[in-house]
């Protein structure tokens, strides 16, 4: 692959997080997650400054970054302009800081408007909506529900780690594997290709069941 898009480096005043801002945020979030996964114990309890240069950054983007960091016990202390060459000096006095409010994953929504292709991963703490297809070999991971406004042909893991009320829904439902909370399911070998109507998977009596999405039943799925 190309050069890393996520880099954490030590400076005199703490850890500095640098991102390749030209990349899509979803990609940065995934790579940040992978970066932190490499040594979760090392980062736990740390505080980081985020380098943003002079570009405008959306509050919701910052919140998403902070949420990923927080999952590994890392606090986003604030944001700073470019610090190239300043590593061994104190930070400029005028830098702006920002402390994001803790995010409520149950109400946060991650929207992805593209086809998620083989080898790609979309992950978020809250609900995930994909406007496009999820192809075989792709993964979608959500703390709560997953909606695919398109064809689900890859793998979908909802309710991670233990939200049993989560559902997975798609217009064309043909996943390779499904997981909701701790339950794993794969479509039976004999299952004919997707029915052509929207379907959804949920947990019913300790097993994942797949059924047609029925109009007017939306409220039924609002449990827990």
């Amino acid at each position, binding site marked *: *692959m*190309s050069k890393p898009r996520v880099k954490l480096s030590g400076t005199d005043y703490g850890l500095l997080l640098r991102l390749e801002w030209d*990349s*899509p945020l979803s*990609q940065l979030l995934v790579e940040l997650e992978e970066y932190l996964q490499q040594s979760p114990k090392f980062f736990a309890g740390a505080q980081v400054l985020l380098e943003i240069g002079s570009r405008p950054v959306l509050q919701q983007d910052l919140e998403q970054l902070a949420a990923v960091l927080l999952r590994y016990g890392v606090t986003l202390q604030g944001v700073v302009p470019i610090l190239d060459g300043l590593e061994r000096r104190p930070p400029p006095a005028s830098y702006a800081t920002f402390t994001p409010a803790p995010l409520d994953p149950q109400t946060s929504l991650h929207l992805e408007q*593209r*086809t*998620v*292709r*083989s*080898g*790609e991963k979309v992950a978020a703490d809250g609900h995930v909506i994909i406007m496009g*297809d999820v*192809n*075989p*070999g792709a993964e979608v991971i959500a703390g709560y529900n997953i909606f695919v406004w398109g*064809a689900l*042909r890859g793998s979908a893991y909802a309710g991670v780690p233990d939200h049993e009320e989560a559902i997975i829904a798609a217009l064309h439902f043909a996943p390779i594997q499904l997981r909701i909370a701790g339950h794993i399911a794969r479509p039976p070998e004999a299952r004919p290709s997707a029915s052509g109507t929207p379907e959804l998977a949920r947990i019913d009596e300790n097993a994942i069941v797949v059924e047609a999405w029925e109009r007017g039943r939306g409220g039924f799925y609002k449990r827990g």
Partner: protein
Amino acid sequence: MTGRVITVTSGKGGVGKTTFSANVSAALAELGKKAVAVDTDVGLRNLDIVMGLENRIVYDLVDVVEGRCRLQKAIIRDKRIATLHMLPAAQTRDKSAVSPDAMEKICAELRSQFDFTIIDSPAGIESGFQNAIAGADEVVIVTTPHVSAIRDADRVIGLLEAAEKQQIFLVINRLQAAMVRRGDMLDIPDILDILAIELLGIIPEDESIVVSSNRGELAALHAASPAGQAYKNIARRLLGEDAPLMPVDEDKGLLKWLARLFKGRAL
């Protein structure tokens, strides 16, 4: 001159990238375009063999990158068609001898001298792939109607989209008419449904390709070869002409089936 740089890639090996690169370059050259085929598979070079130019290599891509010779000197001119050229890979080095930056520079130079630069890439998605796509304006994905080849093609399309390559085309290689009719082969609509990129052409399975590749003869220069005809059609489609996606041959059944398939589709 501002030519087009087109990289041919697939993810999976053995799907026909090199044969495609050689033959489409030849077909473009025969249509009067100045074309160069570039082998970026450093360490496993093959394009020269398929094009029958192996015994004429003096300098190669790595010699150019490392400054041992000028680009002009490494490019071999084909004796059959005056407008056809090839830039060979080094055989005694590996992928690390070339970098994406170096490839971008070489592509810029080729773009100013050739109408078409066709870059044959190695299998895989590692550094060799990154080198091959670095200077590309357009990318052609070659796949066969096999689930594993299509899965790899999808992975590569994802990487190309992340690298912000806008123009990505699909070529389906080695389609077996008889198997399609029996329903034993993956459907073309299914392939297009998953990969969701523009179809540039379909190449039928053609035993004569094995023979011509082994002899270093180019099928695209022989009227009798169905695959050769398909390569010619692809070259014409690259030039914006309205050539058929699949060559006309004696197989009327398949033709009818394809006509049904593409009815109403904007292709």
